[in-house]
């Protein structure tokens, strides 16, 4: 597994947890900004348009995509957690949970590549 990570953390479920937290935190920080931009439509539609043009710039687009990426990662991770916590466990669930963690990573990675 990954070198340099503290021994007890070096496994897929822990990575899934860390990713979920980081993505959640990033989304929380992004949310007010997002709302602000949208509310521009009310007061100054032209500035919203300008902003949306601004989003055509690759770097910005990349950042926006990053957020979409985070949202989808968080979504998949969240679904995984909800399934794990609220639905009954089958005997294989421990393995299944690890697979799902990997799966969420993979799917969101693919999404990122697609979108860019």
């Amino acid at each position: 597994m990954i070198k340099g990570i503290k021994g007890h953390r070096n496994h897929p479920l822990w990575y899934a947890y860390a990713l979920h937290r980081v993505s959640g935190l990033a989304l929380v920080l992004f949310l007010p900004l997002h709302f602000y931009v949208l509310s521009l439509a009310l007061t100054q539609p032209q500035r919203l348009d300008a902003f949306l043009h601004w989003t055509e710039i690759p770097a910005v687009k990349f950042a926006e995509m990053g957020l979409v990426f985070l949202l989808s990662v968080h979504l998949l991770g969240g679904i995984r957690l909800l399934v794990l916590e609220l639905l009954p466990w089958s005997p294989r669930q421990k393995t299944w949970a690890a697979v799902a963690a990997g799966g969420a990573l993979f799917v969101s990675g693919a999404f990122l590549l697609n979108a860019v």
Partner: protein
Amino acid sequence: MANTNDTMTVKVWRGDKNGGAYQQFVVPRQDNQTVLDVVSWIQQNQDPNLSYRFACRVGMCGSCAMMVNGTPRWTCRTHVNKVLDANTLVVAPLRNLPPIKDLVADMDPFFDKWIDAGGHHDPSASRYDAMPQIAPDDAQRAVANESIECINCAVCYAACDTVAHNENYLGPAALQRAWTLYNDEKVNDTDAVLAAVSGKGGCHNCHSQGSCSLYCPNELNPMRAIAGLKAATIKHQLKRGR
């Protein structure tokens, strides 16, 4: 002694609650050598002041757990070959518990939480009553049986980052015990079990990091038990209509 193939480097944490540092030893390698044997060898042959704890030496008492190369393990049943990294072992007292001296951690917080989680049987019958008839293939009993092998070694407790970050968190072993009680048909007041795990440090703090289940030396699955508690508490809450 030179560090050859016949020896290994062992870094041992020395200190107490006021802090400490690693001290290096060179220890001969042997067949069938456990980490506990390595630590014992150092105490018996190199430094008589080294402190560590063990009792049963066969993985039944849960006294000997330590951090070995960053990972919590029962040392009496951890073969050196399994954990040796670049011919080096780094041994420290169990994480998430206050150190007493060298490799000995104070396990009281772990057991205090065990009791706080409601982790003991509240009798519903007496010694003069018959033993309950319980079919071995009873589904609920099967769930209760799953964690019966817990030796309260606190390996899971040391592996969990939620424990590290949240001092109220009851931790995987205590919650798993509560889950067993919840599924024990001998327990009358399952509401009380759920109440004990629904407070500030309760099961809802678990982030399903899974380190507990991964490192439990008895291959138990506290993560699953905690998930069970989460679902049960929700069901109970919804039933109460709130």
